[in-house]
């Protein structure tokens, strides 16, 4: 059946969206233990950046918006880390409430600046429409998002593996105390992690303007899914996030196809809870010697 085959790329594209929104969170949450409820609002900041640039740049603004949104959301994340979060390390409950408050403030700010109604980001002409491959319909915007997600994973992977900053980040994820003992300035690593994580949220925001609403509530639609991917994948693990996003994407796609959207959502939650009962550390566990 054609529809069943159609679900394959759909599952992949759902996974791509999940991966984009969760990629940044997997580091801020995983490395620093900050339950960042404002992550969704950084996604929103990215989306509004795309909206503003569309007025300033015009036609191909989406491509320009990707790096700009990374910078804007990243700097905002940096500001949040520097001004508030670094005073709350090791207190997950407090950071949760703190970032929850920040997310409400940012939402209201967006509402005051841009108005409560959704705004429109026009997709460039080459992202409109779709193409049929072997009887399977591939919308251009979905292909673009999937490619973008792959690119982001590749970039982050290279950063972690090849660059000194990335290696320092991995060291802090694996054992903060030991990393500090070895002379790594963990405070600086934390800041660059937050910059990277929030910046990736900004990039996700730009991509989401192609498929979803752009309004003050944008972040709230995605934040739960983002946490789901991170927790299921294993904290702070790039490979875990990729695996979890793929698993949840295909699970979501096929379950919704066989049942309906509400039930699929419930079943996915049940599956994740059941999975975490068996493997509380997530798909890819951090191998470390610390007792935490």
């Amino acid at each position, binding site marked *: 059946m054609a529809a069943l085959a*159609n679900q394959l790329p759909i599952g992949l594209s*759902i996974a791509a969206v999940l991966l984009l929104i969760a990629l940044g969170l997997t580091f801020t949450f*995983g490395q620093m233990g900050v339950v960042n409820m404002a992550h969704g609002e950084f996604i929103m900041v990215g989306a509004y950046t795309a909206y503003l640039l569309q007025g300033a740049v015009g036609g191909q603004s989406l491509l320009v918006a990707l790096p700009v949104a990374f910078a804007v959301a990243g700097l905002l994340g940096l500001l949040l880390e520097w001004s508030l979060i670094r005073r709350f390390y090791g207190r997950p409950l407090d950071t949760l409430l703190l970032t929850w408050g920040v997310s409400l403030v940012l939402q*209201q700010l967006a509402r005051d600046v841009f108005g409560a*109604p*959704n*705004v429109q980001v026009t997709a460039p002409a080459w992202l409109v429409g779709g193409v049929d491959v072997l009887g399977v319909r591939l919308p251009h915007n979905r292909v673009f998002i999937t490619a973008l997600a792959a690119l982001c994973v590749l970039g982050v992977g290279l950063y972690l593996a090849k660059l000194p900053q990335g290696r320092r980040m991995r060291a802090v994820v694996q054992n903060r105390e030991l990393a500090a003992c070895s002379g790594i300035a963990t405070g600086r690593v934390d800041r660059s992690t937050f910059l990277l994580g929030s910046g990736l949220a900004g990039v996700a925001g730009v991509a989401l303007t192609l498929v979803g609403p752009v309004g003050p509530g944008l972040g709230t639609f995605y934040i739960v899914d983002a946490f789901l991917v991170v927790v299921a994948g294993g904290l702070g693990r790039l490979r875990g996030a990729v695996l979890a996003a793929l698993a949840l994407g295909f699970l*979501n796609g096929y379950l919704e196809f066989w049942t309906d959207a*509400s039930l699929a959502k419930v079943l996915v939650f049940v599956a994740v809870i059941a999975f975490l009962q068996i493997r509380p550390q997530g798909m890819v566990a951090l191998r470390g010697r610390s007792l935490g």
Partner: protein
Amino acid sequence: MRLGNLHRALLALLLPALLATGCVSEPGAGSTDGASGDEIRVGVLHSLSGTMAISEVTVRDAELLAVEELNAAGGVLGKKLVPVVEDGASDWPTFAEKAQKLISQDRVAAVFGGWTSASRKAMLPVFERNKALLWYPVQYEGLESSPYIFYTGATTNQQIVPALDYLASQGKKRMFLVGSDYVFPRTANKIIKAYAAAKGIEVLGEEYTPLGHTEYSTLVNKISDARPDAVFNTLNGDSNVAFFKQLRGSGITAGTTPVVSVSVAEEEVRGIGPENIAGHLVAWNYYQTTRTPANESFVKAFKAKYGADKVTSDPMEAGYNAVKLWAEAVKKAGTAEVEAVRQASGGIALDAPEGRTTIHGDNQHVAKTARIGVVQPDGQIREVWASDGPIEPDPYLKGYDWASGLS
């Protein structure tokens, strides 16, 4: 990472929410006329924050415009109207709580408010218990008629049934139903299915997604697979944006498979992006382009007050009408006292922006003209069909044989 801490943290976050829903305000003193000295207080209760703010803020704006216009014309019964604005925060218990506050603390003469049926259902017992008045300005699923609510939006026989008639007249025989998962879409689809069964229309699928859902590729795939003649869309809020953006890449076009929406107006079209929804159909009673003298001045006044880039829409117009109709009833009754206003309301007519609209004395709905429109690339809606004059409200669809099993 210590998952135990995370769980405790999430629990701490949820607890206050659970406690809040358990709170019920004490019933206040009985009915009131909201008048003190040379002022009459009226309540305006919409979601100014949360997921519904996108729509409800605009209705509040329209209602405040109507209050301002009435005051500029010397007020009502020589008294100045003082609006008391409250935020329902897209949270149904909050609507009930704030309604109680407006009634017992601010002692308002009437409340204009609500959007979702869930918020109306939450407020209904508050208004009935206090014998206070709610004016509800949004099209809804019918099957309700509270003596303390006036319904200035369309009931089903003024919107959904005419839309179905229109589709049938266009030869659309195979339909796919898409809606948000709550009371309005489910009830609306029950009515649509009863209609379809009676008129030989095939319903190929009926799908619901949670409010705020943004992932529509699977649903769009199901629609492409079913190949319907038309899609009947009762999605609400932000989901419409995601649905239409994702529908566009799928190869389903307005030419072959039009989507008929009953909750997408001018304001929502802007958020969706006109190019994503152009050519698809909507069913309402009013469009910004509706040609009446009253609409000309309404649009002009709205833009003058809130900005030239603003659009007007059906629920905004119904909210604006609600204030004007209430004022007419107060004038006729000679007092803002609730029971007197209710007694006086039957037959009150208004030359509204949508055309002539009259309060039905028994069910407290209003007669409205049904209009089907096509979304234009510039974001405006062009009317392609209208009923012959206002349709009398029939919330329980008593005048329709095929609907006999519904209520």
